[in-house]
């Protein structure tokens, strides 16, 4: 509101400023114009007066000069008198003088006296020059003398050598009379030092003694202004200015009279000269002012109307807001309370308090502390004590429980308290929001989440258990099949055993894939980049593929670029699985005689820290139809072309591959044409690293012997234990079996240090699982070998997190069931070498 007023005032001030500036400019312009016009007008008028004076002087000169020869030739003194009197009637001079050599004079009437011409007498008499002089007799008006030398003569016995006519200075006033300006124009003749010699003053400017003395008293003029006028007087220049006497302003115009160094001055009040212009200006200003006032009024009216409109809108808004607030305060589950901070007196409480808390509003108005008395018995916190800690502009929140005073039920409230200054007084505003309903819904949601989490945990457990439980008999089947095959059975039995093994391997693959896809979907698979040597990854892949090609007539072309920096942060296991999956598909779907091309190249990444690894795998296999390509990466998708009969698969391989590529932030694409083959392109972004700490790949334990190795086998499943023991003992390994973890720990502890070289530890065992047993062994303080003895997990827990869990438990390596004896041997050799 204040800002609005300030804005309005500023706008009005600005408008006033603009109007004033405009008016000022206009007034200045008009004043200048009036001044210039008036001065021109005055100069013209006073120039005419000066011209009249000049004509008078000229005529006087002419006559005086003309009379001299006449007087010489005049027949008698009567003729002279008659002649001069006639001339006097024509020119109105005051007197006619015959002047003697010594300056004495005699008038036409015979009156004699001395005419004080000072140094000009000499010019007149001796130099025979005509002169103009001022002279005076005490207590008489000053006279202006126009004298001319004459042939010496005599008049009434008075010897003369010059004649003159004189004008009383006051008579010259007539010549300078200006009829304009209603008699308000004063005309003066002044000497160069400013003294007035002819005063035809008018109005209030009569009896000026010295024009400079008058200007001296005008405070509006500067010394420079006065000096300029004085200089003009001395030089006989014309000029003009405006000066003030008291509150009256006058125009002064001056110009040389062109004789006797006189200056003719004109002085007229500016108000007289500018009367009509001033009227015009005043009228204009009046009209403009009127328009300005009308405009201002209009603006004012508009502002008032707008304000009214705004006020009406505000009123309406307030009404609506009030209504809304009333509705809300009655119907919402929030109790609003305003308290005076100093007295805790209730300024307002919403009427719904009775509904929500069972307290009549009147009681709150009477005593706000009532609200503190409906707390549960065990709630020690008093709301009003907390209010005192809230500073103006701050707020605090609490969760409170209140007992509904009618129903007796406990209701949950979220209390928000504000402290605010309203019209100089501190107020607490409390919002008691009834969250009892929310609290119930929240509780239900929490229960649902718990149930979902329980379900998730159950699923995981189920998956883990099913994996474990499937792998355990699978281990037995595969194990015993392998053992049986080693017993050199008959060909028919061998064939059956081989089929059993193939079927179990297929089953195992099928189980692994199903479990993998399930884990991926349940978010159990996480992308875990580690320091990786990319060349080692491709080498490993090729090594696997070469195994697949052993009994096939396929040509494998490789084009593997060498990366500038082989060490990157990536998930080598997933990359390997992706590539092996695609390559194994290529092997599977390419008929003998065909070829497979494996290319690896490295492209720049999104920045200097990343590169893009691109693998391209092309085959000349059966290819895929365009229709199938659209759902190539869907789960369980296999082209209905009878291939299923030829090529065994779950239809999950590429789905898993796609999931892994997506997990690694990469992309996989495929181009294929039925009967011509397929091209898979995988692009994976990997982060470069300066680390080079990858251990050199250990050489495969080819031909390594494990004979004589003392091995502690912890395995609760008898079949699995038997399988492991039979096969290990066949290799000369001395196996000591423990039936559970506890027994394993006991056996380790019960034997002297060095009694065992290595431990194969099942995980899921009764009494004590593998993790606990490992921890127990590692913690044996009195056994120097407890920390260094290799412990290898050998478990049906085959998931990556299981591997990590084994390592975390202090084990050195993790082998998944079903066991592959070559892997066990290699693991034993690998760990015993260290």
């Amino acid at each position, binding site marked *: 509101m204040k800002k609005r007023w300030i804005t309005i005032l500023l706008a009005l001030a600005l408008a006033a400023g603009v109007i004033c500036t405009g008016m000022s400019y206009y007034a200045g312009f008009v004043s200048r114009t009036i001044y210039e016009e008036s001065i021109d007008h005055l100069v013209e008028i006073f120039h005419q007066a000066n011209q009249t004076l000049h004509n008078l002087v000229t005529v006087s000169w002419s006559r005086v000069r003309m009379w001299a020869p006449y007087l010489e030739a005049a027949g008698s003194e009567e003729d002279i008198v008659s002649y001069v009197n006639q001339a006097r009637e024509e020119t109105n001079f005051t007197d006619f003088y015959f002047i003697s050599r010594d300056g004495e004079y005699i008038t036409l009437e015979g009156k004699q006296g001395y005419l004080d011409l000072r140094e000009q007498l000499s010019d007149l008499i001796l130099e025979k020059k005509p002169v103009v002089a001022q*002279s005076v007799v005490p*207590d008489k008006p000053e006279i202006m003398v126009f004298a001319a030398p004459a042939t010496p003569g005599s008049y009434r016995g008075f010897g003369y050598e010059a004649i003159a006519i004189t004008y009383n200075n006051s008579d010259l006033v007539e010549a300078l009379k200006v009829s304009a300006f209603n008699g308000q124009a004063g005309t003066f003749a002044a000497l160069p030092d400013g003294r007035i010699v002819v005063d035809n003053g008018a109005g209030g400017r009569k009896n000026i003694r010295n024009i400079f*003395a008058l200007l001296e008293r005008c405070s509006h003029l500067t010394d420079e202004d006065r000096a300029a006028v004085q200089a003009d007087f001395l030089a006989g220049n014309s000029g003009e200015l405006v000066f003030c006497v008291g509150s009256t302003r006058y125009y002064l115009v001056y110009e040389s009279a062109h004789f006797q160094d006189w200056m003719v001055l004109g002085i007229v009040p500016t108000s007289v000269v500018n009367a009509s212009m001033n009227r015009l200006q005043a009228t204009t200003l009046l009209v403009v002012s009127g328009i300005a006032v009308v405009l201002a009024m209009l603006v004012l009216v508009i502002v008032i109307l707008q304000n009214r409109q705004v006020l009406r809108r505000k009123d309406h808004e307030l009404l609506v807001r009030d209504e809304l607030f009333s509705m809300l305060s009655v119907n919402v589950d929030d109790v609003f309370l305003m308290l005076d901070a100093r007295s805790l007196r209730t300024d307002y409480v919403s009427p719904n308090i009775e509904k929500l808390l069972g307290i009549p509003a009147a009681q709150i108005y009477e005593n706000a502390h009532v609200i503190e008395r409906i707390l549960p018995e065990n709630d020690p916190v008093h709301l009003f004590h907390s209010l005192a800690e809230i500073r103006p502009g701050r707020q605090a929140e609490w969760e409170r429980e209140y007992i509904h005073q009618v129903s007796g039920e406990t209701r949950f409230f979220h209390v928000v308290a504000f402290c605010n200054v309203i019209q100089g007084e501190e107020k607490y505003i409390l919002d008691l929001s009834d969250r009892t309903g929310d609290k119930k819904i929240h509780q239900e949601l929490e229960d649902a989440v718990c149930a979902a989490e329980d379900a998730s945990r159950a699923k995981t457990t189920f998956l883990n258990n099913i994996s474990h439980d499937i792998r355990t008999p699978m281990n037995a089947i595969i194990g015993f099949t392998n053992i049986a095959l080693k017993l050199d059975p008959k060909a028919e039995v061998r064939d059956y055993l081989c089929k059993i093994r193939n079927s179990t391997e297929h089953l195992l693959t099928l189980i692994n894939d199903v479990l993998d896809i399930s884990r991926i979907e349940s978010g159990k698979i996480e992308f875990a980049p580690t320091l990786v040597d990319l060349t080692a990854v491709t080498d490993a892949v090729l090594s696997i593929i070469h195994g697949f090609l052993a009994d096939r007539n396929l040509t494998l072309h490789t084009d593997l670029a060498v990366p500038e920096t082989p060490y990157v942060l990536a998930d080598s296991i997933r990359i390997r699985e992706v590539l092996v999956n695609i390559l194994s598909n290529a092997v599977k779907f390419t008929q003998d005689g065909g070829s497979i091309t494996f290319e690896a190249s490295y492209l720049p990444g999104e920045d200097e820290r990343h590169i893009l690894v691109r693998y391209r795998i092309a085959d000349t296999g059966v290819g895929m139809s365009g229709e199938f390509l659209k759902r190539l990466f869907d789960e369980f998708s296999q082209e209905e072309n009878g291939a299923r009969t030829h090529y065994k698969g779950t239809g999950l391989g590429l789905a898993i591959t796609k999931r892994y590529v997506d997990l690694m932030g990469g992309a996989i694409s495929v181009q294929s044409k039925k009967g011509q083959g397929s091209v898979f392109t995988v692009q994976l972004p990997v982060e470069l690293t300066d680390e080079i700490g990858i251990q050199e790949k250990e050489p495969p334990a080819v031909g390594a012997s494990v004979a004589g190795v003392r091995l502690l086998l912890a395995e609760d499943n008898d079949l699995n234990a038997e399988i492991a023991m039979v096969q290990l003992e066949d290799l000369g390994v001395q196996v000591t079996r423990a039936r559970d973890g506890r027994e394993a720990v006991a056996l380790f502890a019960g034997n002297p240090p060095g009694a065992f070289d290595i431990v194969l530890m099942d995980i899921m065992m009764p009494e004590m699982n593998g993790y606990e047993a490992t921890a127990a062994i590692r913690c044996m303080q009195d056994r120097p070998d407890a920390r260094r003895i290799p412990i290898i997990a050998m478990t049906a827990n085959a998931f990556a997190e299981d591997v990590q869990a084994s390592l975390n438990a202090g084990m050195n390596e993790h082998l998944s069931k079903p066991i592959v004896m070559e892997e066990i041997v290699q693991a034993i050799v690998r760990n015993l070498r260290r």
Partner: protein
Amino acid sequence: MKKLICLLLCVILAAILLTGCEYRAESTVQAKDDGRVALSIYMWDRSMFKELTPWLEQKFPNIDFTFVQSYNTIDYYTDLLERGYDLPDIITCRRFSLNDAAPLAGHLMDLSKSEVAGTFYSSYLESNRETGGAIRWLPMCAEVDCLMANKDLFDRYGIALPTNYAEFIAAIDAFEALGIKGFQTDWAYDYTCLETMQGCAIPELMSLEGTRWRMEYESETQDNPVGLDNVVWPKVFARYEQFLRDVRFEPGDEQLNFSPVTQPYFEGRTAMIRATAAMAEEITEEYGVSSVILPYFGETAEDNWVLTYPICQLAVARHVEEDKEKSEAVREVLLAIFSEEGQRAAAAGSSVLSYNKEVSISPAPSLRYVQDCIDSNHLYMRLASTEIFAISLDVAQKMMKGVYGAQGAYEDFSAQIMHYVNPEAEEVVFTQENAYSVDFGEHGVPAGSSLMNTLRVFGGEQIAIGYSSVISSSIFAGDYTTQQIKWIMTYKNNVYQASYTGEEIRRIMDWLVNVKADGSNPVMHRNLLPITSGMEYTVTETERGKFALGEITVDGQPLDDDAVYSVMLLGADTCLEHPTFCNCPMPQDLKDKRTQVYEVKPTNQGGIMNALEKTRQLLPPTDYVTIVHP
């Protein structure tokens, strides 16, 4: 919001105040007049104190005037400057010529563009215009100084008042035949010699050659002195020689001063004397001797001339321009002085002619026989440079004594005027060690007290009383010539001695201080309080310029009314006793007691001259008066 409203109100208030300031600017002069301004005015003669100074003080209550009775020559002011003192704000002098005024030009304001100069008839001011165009001296109204005739005497003996020179001589002869002196004058004075010398030959001096010479002489410079004209001036001396003869000058007359000439005139034993129109009026009125002014006669009535001169010339010190308030005050004071009322006050009722357009003073009755001269502008302005005065006295006296005739006079005058040296301004008489101010201090005028102490000690009296201000300048430390010594004491003082009782002294002081029953005021200004030596007194200033006598002490003890004291009285009778001045006649019994001590010829500063011959120093001042504030 409130702040904003306050701000707006402040802006409006400031605007109103600023507007008010603008209106104030219009009345700056008025505002300045509200403050008091100090002005010092040196009056050439005591007569100016009679009406002019009280009138000025009454007219300008906001101005603190300091009036000092100074001297009649410009040399007096030149001496002030030479001693390193500033000129007073306004100065006046009687004897004036542009030549004499030249040394002061740089220290005086140019008044040509002043308002007051505009009140003069232009042609009168022109004679005071310097070659550079400046007008620094303004002439106050004209005094007529011619021949005065006892008309009663003429009437009594049926002798017609003369209208030309021949009749003038005839009248003298007629009176001489009756045993009455036809014409006599105070030949001892330089002005008498100057005026009679010029007055008898005005037609010559006003001839074309005469006026040309005069203009040449008045514009002479120090490097280019102008001597006497060889056409006009021989005639002047011839005329003067004839005049002396015609007026029946007798050997010894050259020593006549004022009283020996006026007394016989009052008594009807002399028919005509030289006098001013003011004197004619005065004598007619006060002595009952109907006196009229006659012109200096020419061969015909048309050749008669009246000799005039301004009663004084006035100038303003240049430093006044630096003080705007003072400048404004001076402007107003000058306009007042040269107004009709001011000039009447300056002339103190004397018969004068005005030089100002706006002043109309009708010629006094005593001038009725020279009205023709006035009407015909036969008004001769005396040639009055200092050297002309001095040489005129010397040459005229020698002519009177028969040292030489007209030719000799011409030659001597010519010689002196080319190399004039004032002998009184040459020789250092004594060197004053201490300076004393003429300004009224806490207890009187120090310089005046010093003078009175010196005179009393010289005379050996117990008490000395100066009638009024007897000091005309500060006493300076340094050398004093005779001329400078004369400037110490005011003009026209007589020194008397008598023995008075304390009671009589109290009456003398009552006469000198207290306002009389008829309103006559012997003081008028505190500078004119009597200066005493050997006696102290207190006064109360009851009104501005009016004082009441308080206690009188002698050497700190109350005056003993019964005791007899030897007293020196110093003062001009004309100042206090004369009706035209203070109209405060000294009680006759007191007056009868006194005897004049010093011879006053040819100057009346004999007292101080004689005292200094003895003391060689002007003695330190003493506190002699205390003004008690009521």
